């Protein structure tokens, strides 16, 4: 009992330590971009300035200080949630991000759910019959998805299902303009409209969600499918499954054991996909004018404003590392071996 607690303690400490080191690494990179590659002075002086004003601002924001001092100041600001001010919306970056985060979270969660729902069963089926028709189909679908540029696939779907067939609404935002956003509860329109009990608004929000979510599901799910299939095949060929079969265990019971041992890497891959999606939606958000973090970053870029982009970079790398940490802990719950790994 005590031993296992110690094991857990060290495991959590190691993983959390790594999480902090990684966060530090990310902040060093974003610091380099905002302070060394870009010059924040020009963001502050506006369009009319002279040398004296430049020097004053340099001193004011501490650009004349030694490098490590500048970094500490930057990191201190980050810890207080100060990500700078957006040059085109004049809002603090953190505030802007908070307003747009639900849109991106909603889209990536739907995309993840759609991808997992087809990729995991397809991967398992493909592993059970490696030469079967299903396996070939899954392989083809995975290859196609991986090679498909997401933004182009989005345009393709818009062309077919909006422009030609009119099955889905125009790719303009999250809900029909005539309906307008529901009252804010979670920020997820597909949930808030349900809570408000507005059927029409709910259908509108879902019909706006399906195409972009499908686009992301198609391009991000192949890795889940491949890893499910590969892992399941490995497990099915392992000694303990062979012994289980030899002892005459019924088929569905054998598969249940196999499935359980397949789960670990699959969960890690799903978590990594989710972490990737938060920033991986950028181009698809542009195609569908989905007002999330990606579109915010692109707007900022068009104003040569890199602090909001760096804010989104920080947030999404933090989110990725957090999801990764969570999947590690989740795996350790099921598999004691993970707890003693580095």
């Amino acid at each position: 009992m005590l031993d296992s607690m110690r094991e857990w303690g060290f495991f959590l400490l190691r993983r959390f330590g790594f999480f902090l080191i990684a966060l530090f690494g990310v902040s060093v990179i974003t610091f380099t971009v905002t302070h060394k590659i870009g010059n924040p002075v020009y963001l502050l002086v506006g369009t009319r300035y002279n040398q004296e004003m430049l020097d004053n601002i340099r001193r004011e924001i501490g650009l004349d200080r030694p490098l490590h001092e500048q970094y500490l100041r930057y990191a201190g600001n980050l810890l207080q949630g100060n990500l700078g001010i957006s040059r085109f919306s004049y809002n603090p970056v953190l505030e802007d991000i908070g307003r747009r985060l639900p849109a991106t979270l909603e889209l990536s969660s739907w995309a993840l759910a759609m991808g997992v729902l087809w990729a995991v069963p397809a991967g398992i089926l493909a592993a059970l019959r490696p030469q079967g028709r299903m396996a070939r189909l899954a392989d083809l679908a995975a290859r196609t998805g991986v090679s498909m540029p997401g933004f182009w696939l989005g345009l393709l779907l818009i062309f077919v299902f909006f422009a030609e067939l009119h099955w889905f609404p125009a790719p303009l935002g999250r809900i029909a303009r005539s309906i307008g956003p529901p009252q804010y509860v979670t920020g997820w329109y597909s949930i808030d409209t349900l809570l408000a009990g507005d059927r029409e608004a709910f259908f509108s929000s879902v019909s706006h969600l399906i195409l972009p979510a499908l686009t992301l599901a198609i391009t991000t799910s192949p890795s889940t499918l491949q890893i499910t299939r590969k892992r399941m095949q490995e497990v099915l060929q392992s000694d303990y499954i062979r012994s289980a079969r030899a002892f005459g265990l019924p088929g569905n019971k054998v598969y249940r054991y196999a499935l359980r041992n397949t789960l670990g890497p699959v969960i890690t891959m799903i978590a990594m996909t989710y972490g990737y999606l938060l920033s991986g939606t950028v181009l698809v958000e542009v195609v569908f004018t989905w007002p999330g973090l990606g579109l915010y970053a692109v707007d900022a870029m068009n104003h040569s404003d890199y602090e909001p982009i760096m804010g989104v970079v920080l947030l999404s790398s933090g989110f990725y590392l957090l999801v990764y940490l969570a999947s590690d802990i989740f795996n350790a719950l099921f598999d004691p071996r993970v707890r003693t790994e580095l």
Partner: protein
Amino acid sequence: MLAGEQAIPERPSLLQRMMRANGPLRVRLNIGLLLLIVLLGLLAPLLPLHDPVRPNPLNRFKAPSLEHPFGTDGNGMDVLSRTIHAIRTDFALAISSVALGIVVGAPLGALSGYFGGRLDSVITRITEVFQGFPQILFGMAVLAAAGNTMVNLVLILAFYNVPVYSKMVRSVTLPLREADFVQAARVAGNSPLSVVFRHVLPNTLVPVFSQLPLSCAYAAQMIAGLSFIGLGVAIPTPEWGSMIQLGANQLVFGKWWASIFPGLALFISVWLLNNVSDLFGSLVVRRG
């Protein structure tokens, strides 16, 4: 020859194995088509095509016809000619960024794998941080801060490839440390650096080359993606991402050709590169 000894068959060359593995037809088809695309790009200026960068205001968004088999785009430029000329831009940018990544990453990986210790753990940590890095966003920020040029685009993509190759070369180097030929080189009095660069590094190249097409595929997708939002390669230079962008707003009105054809070219190239990388990979495993 001693009794019972069998003649050792000569080991087939990499090329021979390449042509044989996984059903010769599929391999030949993939590599052949990829070479065809590269050739098409190389010969583009000699082919009887329209000028890829000459606008014609009277000829905007014309549907595919005999004169313009892929139609014309929003500037009245010929989409077929631009799609073919774009092979040059996209492949050149992708290959140069990957090559730069290898030139920096492979020696780093060999050094860290060979010497181990603190350098090794630092490089491994950095690689791990990069796995979760939002690459498109970061590229956007750097290009916004440092200037939106093709050179910067290549540098960023090379930057992403450094950890990929340092990690791979490192993992191949680890078992090589104790290999006979490396020990022999050491005993023969070579300096540690010369052991790494003349004996270890050349023996890590096979997995590097099997990864190469995959990295190029990824780089091509990144280049097109960034150009799609107006970064890196600007119009009128023919490039698939910016071409897709130029056609995108007419797509909803049913004028599909200006976006669909360049996207198709990108999709097919990436597909072939991925396949070729898979085939190389299975060869490396088989050799194992």
